[in-house]
């Protein structure tokens, strides 16, 4: 019965919600609202589970003096400072984020927000360093990725179009240099011909492309975002949606039982 009862609850809840989507009239509309209210209450309690797991794991690390235990101790202390300050503020002002709450005006504004912002701001430095190291023209695909990324980065910012010509000029020069080295090292003249033709093509299309990017910057940006990236992304999303529907039906009909373990 330990497995059957949760499966029956899952089936009944799932079917009720599906039926309510297509028949939003009583009693289904009311049932859906009630189920959703239960879900809101239950999801509130999941935070207690999360806290239990977080505190349990870090307390254990402190007790065992495991590697990095001072960080765990910092986390536990921060948790209790936040909790106690929050409770005191709530008792004194009626709400934790009331305009006169010291929790909001000091702790949240001058500790929590700057710490969280700083953590995320560090990403900018790692992204810059990673872009420098990872965006190398090792293969044709990598080259396409780095050229597209550079164009998007420049079309997203004002005056980006003004630096587009020199940036693409250097990129074209590098591409021609690499292609001509391939041409030089080719076994025969005919084997190297594609590299030569590609170099000539790059030189020929450079000026028209730069002109389009300079004059139609936002249109180029829109086209890359709405056509190139969207086509690939839509395919991925359709796959995810179909997979989600299939998984949902498997759970509702009791075929997928891994969530019970």
């Amino acid at each position, binding site marked *: 019965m330990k497995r059957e009862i949760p499966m029956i609850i899952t089936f009944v809840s799932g079917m009720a919600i599906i039926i309510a989507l297509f028949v939003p009239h009583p009693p289904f509309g009311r049932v859906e609202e009630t189920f959703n209210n239960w879900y809101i209450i239950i999801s509130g309690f999941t935070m207690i589970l999360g806290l239990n797991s977080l505190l349990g794991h870090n307390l254990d690390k402190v007790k065992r003096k495991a590697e990095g235990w001072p960080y765990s101790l910092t986390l536990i202390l921060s948790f209790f400072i936040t909790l106690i300050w929050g409770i005191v503020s709530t008792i004194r002002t009626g709400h934790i*984020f009331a305009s006169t709450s010291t929790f909001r005006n000091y702790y949240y504004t001058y500790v929590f927000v700057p710490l969280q*912002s700083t953590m995320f701001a560090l990403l900018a430095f790692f992204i810059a360093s990673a872009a420098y190291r990872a965006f190398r023209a090792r293969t044709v695909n990598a080259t396409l990725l780095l050229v597209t990324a550079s164009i998007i980065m420049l079309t997203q910012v004002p005056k980006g179009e003004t630096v587009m010509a020199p940036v693409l000029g250097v990129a074209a020069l590098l591409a021609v240099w690499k292609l001509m080295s391939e041409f030089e090292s080719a076994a025969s003249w005919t084997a190297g011909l594609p590299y030569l033709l590609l170099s000539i093509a790059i030189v020929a299309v450079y000026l028209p492309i730069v002109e389009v990017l300079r004059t139609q910057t936002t249109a180029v940006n829109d086209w890359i975002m709405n056509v190139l990236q969207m086509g690939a992304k839509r395919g991925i999303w359709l796959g995810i949606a179909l997979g989600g529907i299939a998984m949902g039906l498997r759970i509702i009909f009791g075929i997928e039982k891994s969530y019970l373990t």
Partner: protein
Amino acid sequence: MKFFEKLAKIDRRIIFVILAITIISPFLFNLTFKLTPLEESKRAFNFINSLPEGSTVIISIDYDASSMPELQPMLEAVLRHIFSRNLRVILLGHWAAGVPLGQQALEKIASEYGKVYGEDFVVLGYRPGLQAVIINMGKNIHATFDNVDYEGTPLSKLPMMSNIKTYEDVACVFGFEAGNVGEMWIQFANARYGVKVLLGCTGVVAPDLFQYRQSGQLVAIVSGLRGAADYERLAKHEAFASYGMTAQTFAHVLIVAFIIIGNIGYIFTQSKKRRSS
């Protein structure tokens, strides 16, 4: 050739220092560039502009301090526009740690325009449950929030809320997104109840939302710091986003420059290796 090898292997600490100087300097000298607003930003601005006076806009705060540099100035610009048009605001959020940011911005901008709590704006706060909250709001906004605002004041005592029961009574939802909550607004509020949805989002979230723009489920996307700067310009009130945009411009150009430098070093080093082998 050692020069090119060095170009291919610049110490990351040097990159960090140069990037820090590049980002900080525009703020020190208050540098701004003239922007041509993107079509998407104009669409959002024009939609808000077209709403009749007294209409209500639901603002959803679905971000926290980590996305604050992009979304907080955007929120302030949108709120300025909303209050200048004498529209009303209901503020709520699905990121518990972010809702107070929205609340602070709302209080700040409302005081600039002399707006009164309960008459011109209301804060409903946070409720866990995301999809369930969005769906239930379509049936009864008051009941979804237990008939009280974030401080426990009964909604029946707030004059603005007396005529607002479901999505049918609001003009649109304007979500500020650092994750996938925006998609939930589209999938549950727009698809089921037909409410108009506009989204302001971080730059990295925007590509996930273009499909909804193309399908017509989303009125407009205001994307990243660029979108925020566009909105400030359209609302004729240049502030943090415009200065931030200059810093972002320099940072983007610097990163592209580093990519080129890295590739010069890489290509010359590779051709040297090939020749020597």
